[in-house]
């Protein structure tokens, strides 16, 4: 199957400081990421704060410019497109952000919010435009009566529905969902996850689902990428990652996630220390200072992401 989106050696460095008094610092947010996303799938991206998962999502749809690397969307290099063509392509990939209280303009009502992308990209006006907005709202579980209300009148779950309606307005094929349920309570999170699933089946959407919550990612994803300090350390199907994790970091992450089952006693791998700063990542494998299986080689050589069978990729010197 042909990939819908391909990232090659995708790298993003942020510059901090500079000027007269301060040394220039480089945050290595994303380092040399290779990734294929196939049509119709949900690719989950998990990792702790600062691992580069949001940066990956934004670079893939060129919301921010990568420092290095390439992104191919249906074989076309997105990073080489000029402004006008990129604007055309943007109809096909959309994003839903973590906090709908911040991502929706408090001074626009629901009608303005949802019709904004339609006004910017299509010729729909008047009756047809209003009809399309109502149709979108009904699709995400809101009603016509909500059209003239403002964001502060809604609950978090309803706001996220509005954000989803906005993202779907232009019939995109690829949607980046950046922690879409992290600001919501469990009972409402379930409503939104169900909605996202329904929409995917109905509209044939491809999702990049970014989250720090392993149980959510496990539930919704077909394939999962585990990130640590700007790199993908393991990539495989949900099955491969959850029942046969090969990277020590993935194993530790899985064992530290609390399960809602008091009788599920298992040996917990408690990692020592904290995630190092991406300003100054350790040499070799960036996980080696916290790794419980580190070898001498881990401190010097960087492991490459290799296929250990059935498209299950692991970047670890222990795994050959």
């Amino acid at each position, binding site marked *: 199957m042909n990939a819908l989106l391909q990232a090659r050696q995708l790298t993003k460095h942020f510059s901090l400081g500079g000027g007269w008094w301060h040394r220039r610092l480089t945050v290595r947010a994303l380092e040399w990421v290779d990734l294929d996303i196939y049509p119709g799938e949900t690719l989950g991206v998990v990792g702790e704060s600062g691992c580069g998962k949001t940066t990956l999502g934004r670079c893939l749809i060129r919301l921010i410019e990568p420092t290095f690397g390439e992104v191919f969307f249906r074989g076309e290099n997105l990073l080489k497109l000029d402004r006008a063509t990129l604007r055309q392509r943007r109809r096909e990939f959309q994003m839903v952000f973590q906090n709908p209280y911040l991502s929706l303009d408090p001074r626009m009502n629901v009608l303005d919010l949802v019709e904004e992308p339609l006004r910017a990209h299509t010729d729909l006006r008047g009756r047809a435009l209003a009809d399309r907005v109502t149709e979108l709202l009904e699709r995400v579980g809101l009603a016509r009566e909500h059209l003239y209300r403002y964001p502060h009148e809604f609950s978090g779950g309803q706001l996220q529905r509005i954000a989803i309606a906005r993202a779907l307005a232009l019939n995109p094929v690829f949607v980046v969902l950046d922690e879409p349920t992290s600001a919501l309570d469990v009972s409402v999170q379930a409503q939104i996850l169900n909605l996202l699933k329904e929409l995917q089946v109905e509209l044939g959407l491809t999702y990049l689902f970014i989250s720090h919550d392993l149980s959510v990612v496990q539930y919704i994803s077909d394939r999962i990428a585990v990130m640590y300090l700007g790199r993908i350390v393991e990539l495989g199907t949900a099955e491969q990652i959850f029942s046969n994790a090969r990277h020590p970091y993935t194993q530790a992450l899985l064992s530290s996630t*609390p399960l809602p089952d008091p009788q599920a006693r298992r040996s917990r791998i408690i990692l020592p220390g904290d995630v190092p700063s991406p300003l100054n990542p350790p040499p070799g494998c960036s996980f080696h200072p916290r790794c419980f299986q580190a070898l001498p080689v881990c401190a010097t050589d960087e492991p490459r992401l290799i296929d250990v069978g059935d498209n299950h990729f692991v970047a670890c010197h222990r795994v050959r």
Partner: protein
Amino acid sequence: MREPLISVRDLRVQFHTYAGVVNALNGVSFDLYPGEVFGLVGETGCGKSVTGLALLQLIPPPGEIVGGQILYCGQDLRTLPPAQMRSLRGGKIAMVFQDPAAALNPVFTVGEQMEMVIRQHRRVSRRDARRQAAEMLRAVGMPDPLRILNAYPHELSGGMQQRVMIAIALSSGAEVLVADEPTTALDVTIQAQILDLLVSLKKERGIAILLITHNLGVVAETCDRVGVLYAGSVMEMGPTTAIFREMKHPYTQGLLAAIPHAERRGRFLSAIPGSVPSGLQIPPGCPFHPRCAFAWDECRNEIPSLLPVDEGHWVACHLYGRGRR
């Protein structure tokens, strides 16, 4: 029978706002025993943080405790003179907050802040206070206590800051620790470290911990008993295994069924319809009835009382009311 360390009886808290009276707690009762972790779970706005603050008499205006009792060693904390309450607060009853970066003072070193708390509660010299502070930091698993004492909060990571908070809370010999979402701001691998620390403190020092959280996984792994809160009322309370295995209340059932899970892959989650009511307009009768699949007339009119269904397992639901179970 063990004696509870803290007994909360029919606690009622209201906030007087311009929009009207918000009923944050509507008669919450529970006991906290020494050497146990009691979890309070619930969704946003259910009153779990307010319960924690009420225990320390820290409800901020325009909030007010309007009824009930909080008994500690036979004394009602509500009627305690402010000076005595001050010595209990941070002394015998201590609190750890969600965001350690906001709770620590950024302009003092960790050592200065710890000395301040220790000297507030005990008459010791600065040098002794500093020595105790270093011991406390070692007790919460800090690798290099002397360096940490001289560090400012911003020099520490989130997990380290939370350890400092716990060390401060315990530095005056606390018997009760109120932990309000202590790991919500932390990453999972760090969360595991902190939860391990709390459980070991419970075992080694016999402290009673009131763990306030929205994360059911955290509850399942660390709590001995759990209370499920909804719209300011306890819906169900019991041993952790009973709550997760034999939950009775439709809300608890709905909450647990809504958790995404490997076994639920490919299927839809059973979400609870609607959303949490605002404290301004709590539905009459059972507060959960508008979202409940089993609700009938009685639920709309009469508030169900918390009744035992099993050893130490209590449910507030008309389904299990008089003679119906």
